[in-house]
């Protein structure tokens, strides 16, 4: 993993190191309601650690989410939060950040929230390079609604066929899932996301690093984190088997190389696939303000409509 992104001028650079909090200090009063063993716990711990390491004051952090087990995440963090409706977290996060670019804004959610109902917003957040970090807790299933297939569920998944884990539901696909899964990493790359990474909730140290890099990246950072659902689709063993760190010599500036790893037929690679430095949305909007000139008066505006 490179730490290249740490040095670019992210909007949140001024926040770094301003707070001295232990990870535990970032726990809110609300206890997570996840099932014991849920992968989301690992992501949450890594998040506490990342924010603590970065030294970001809680009042400057906003976590937005959609609906899902994973969508309950914001309430568990001592920070501002927005538990939005299903699938719209990227629009909330974009508004929150662009209205006040000094805030650290992180969007979180599940694979259904992100890639199913939210699929229409992902390409646009990426191409705008909006200055947020988007963490998707991917359990390849709908947890909260009790185990229907999601866009990342393997084809064929059903009560009688669970190629990669133990399935306890899949009620909407009793004869197997007809749909082929999407490839979130390839999609993020195709959309022009400028930071694309993948983690696994059982690798807390690595996940912590990815989150730190994602939060401090200038522009849109996308992190897919495998986060198994023990209750409906337990894929821990599968991931332990097939995940593998990206090779040390992988060039994170080579999009085509990243694509190839995303499509690897044997392994699910973990780590940073791609990093790019291009103007972020906050920068671009600042640019507009400069171009517009700052001359404004209501009287002048009214003059425009006079004879």
């Amino acid at each position, binding site marked *: 993993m490179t730490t290249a992104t740490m040095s670019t001028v992210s909007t949140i650079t001024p926040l770094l190191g301003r707070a001295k909090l232990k990870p535990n200090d970032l726990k*809110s*009063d*609300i206890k997570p309601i996840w099932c014991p063993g849920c992968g989301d716990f690992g992501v949450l711990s890594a998040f506490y650690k990342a924010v603590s390491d970065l030294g970001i*004051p*809680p*009042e*400057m952090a*906003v976590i*937005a989410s959609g*609906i899902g087990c994973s969508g*309950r995440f*914001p*309430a568990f963090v*001592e*920070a*501002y*939060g*927005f*538990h*939005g*409706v299903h699938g*719209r977290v*990227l*629009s*909330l*996060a*974009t*508004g*929150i*950040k*662009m*209205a*006040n670019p*000094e*805030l650290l804004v992180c969007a979180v959610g599940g694979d259904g929230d992100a890639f199913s109902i939210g699929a*229409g*917003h992902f*390409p*646009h957040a990426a191409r705008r390079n909006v200055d947020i970090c988007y963490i998707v807790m991917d359990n390849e299933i709908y947890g909260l609604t009790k185990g229907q297939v999601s866009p990342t569920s393997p084809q064929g998944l059903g009560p009688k066929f669970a190629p990669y884990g133990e399935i306890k539901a899949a009620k909407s696909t009793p004869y197997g899932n007809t749909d082929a899964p999407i490839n979130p990493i390839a999609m993020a790359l195709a959309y022009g996301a400028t930071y694309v990474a993948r983690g696994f909730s059982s690798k807390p140290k690595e996940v912590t690093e990815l989150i730190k890099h994602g939060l401090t990246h200038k522009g849109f950072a996308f992190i897919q984190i495998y986060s198994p659902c023990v209750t409906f689709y337990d894929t821990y063993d599968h991931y332990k088997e097939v995940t593998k760190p990206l090779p040390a010599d992988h060039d994170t500036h080579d999009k085509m190389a990243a694509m190839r790893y995303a499509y690897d037929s044997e392994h699910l690679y973990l780590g940073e696939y791609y990093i790019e430095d291009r103007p972020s949305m906050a920068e671009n*909007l600042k640019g*507009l*303000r400069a*171009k*517009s*000139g*700052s*001359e*404004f008066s*209501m009287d002048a*505006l*009214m003059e425009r*409509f*006079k*004879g």
Partner: protein
Amino acid sequence: MATSNGQNGSHDLVLRVGGDSAAGGIVATGEIFAYMASLAGLEVYTTRTIPAEIKGGHVMYQMRAALEPLTAQGDEVDVLLAYDEETYERYSTLLKPGGVLVYNSNDVKLNVKSEGRRHVGIPMHDIAKSLSFARGYNMVAVGALVKLFGMDMDLARRGIERRFGGSKRAAETVTVNIAALERGYQYIEEQLGKDSPFQLPQRTDEREGRMVISGNQALSMGIIAADCKFMAGYPITPASEIMEFLAGEFPKIGGTVIQAEDEIAACGMALGASFSGVRSMTATSGPGLALMIEMLGHASMTETPLVIVDVQRAGPSTGMPTKVSQGDLRLACYGGNDDGPRIVVAATTVEDCFYLMPHAFNLTEKYQTPVIFMSDQDMAVRVQTIAPFDLSRVVYEGRERYEPSANGHGPYQRYLDTPSGVSPMSVPGQPGGQYTAEGLEHYASGAPVFSVEMHTNNMRKRARKLDAALEYIERHQLWEEFGDAQSEIGIIGWGSTIGPVREAIQSLADDGMTVHVFYPKVLMPLPEKQLTAFLKNKKTVIVPEMNFSGQLAEMLQAKFLRPFTKLNRYGGVPFATREIVDAVRAAHQL
């Protein structure tokens, strides 16, 4: 030929121009006249159609000009400028006795008698071609009209400069157009001699510079005046112009405009920005509002301020995007899964589009519940003369902010229950104000809870804010009441139908008929006290609406348990003044 139009009684003139938009220049003709009239110190009120076709198709532009402020487009026409046969066929019956038809004799074949109207044929295409500027046929017509009405050619030249100036090839364009203008003028002079047979109303008094402006423009300026700094939108006819206007101005004042990927995202971005503490909004039309319904409920549940502008167009569904309707009232008031309180305001005039907007923002910020601002296609796109905005009338009342010290000890209670239902709100960046805006039912802290007690209590808390809002509505008198309070005949309406109603009561008064009118500018919550007082002595109350089902009328019936006389038009065009007059007449004869 200063004539009286409609039931107005004041001296005014209505000019209607029509032709095939593929030929070009029809709307330009009307706009130049509107501009000239305005320069001449007259009040103007325009209306136009937009062709259903993407390019080409019949288009009409009407301009009414008068000495006194106008409130309606005028039912009948003094001057009809027909570029083609279709125009003549569509509108010749609207021409008043004593009116004048100016027609393109290269296209229009007259086969009826004039019936007291004057007909002036001009071979517009021939003349334009003689200038080697075929597209200039419309300026030939303008020149002819200038002469016919004895107007000032300088104003016409300024009009052309304004319309065509500025761009790269501007100078050249202006020159050829002015040449065509002058040929049209000469042509009439040659035919009818030096004296002009007709006359525009003449302004003699001095007036401060007035504006000629559309509803969408006034509304956009209202947004700026309201100190809104964030707009996210998605293009949709007839609301796109608001986003476009703000995109030009917001960057200058540090504001942000984002063209989102769809209406749901636009609404979400605005909601997020509002959460960040900035006054935020989106603007759309019916289909877009329909898409925002889930998020609207979310704003209500999380108690996050948000203004949604709905410039209504004719539906249902895609419907007639360029035609007017008032068909979205019920969607605005009741569109939501389960009861999520919102405030619905409706501008009645182009002025209102400006002045009501700061109130809309104050309401959403003070009561932390979404506000839907209703406009309509007709009011949005037509231009009209109004006085410059009086900025001293703009008031600012903001969010109640969370003050850690005042709140005593303990963690911040975002959804604290209070007598008004309004809970002090923190803003990201404020230390100690951390909370999660929660769409699930929740405790005062924001933590989710699904108990009978908390849900029952919070349903009341959230709804109570609308009762509290009545105080604001009364304090700022967010309604219009006029006419004769003694009259047993009343009109209650909403939105831009107020124009024809205002004009109608003048003309009814001429006939000795009275009517009492009430237009709430907030439709949810309705100003019940004022309406009750209004209804006390009413035998018949007419509710004119540009929709099929009588959406306001039904709301009034549910509330006041008495019949209202529905007067519905749903053809995609505004009310004619005459239709209001007739309804009031009929009520008087009951």
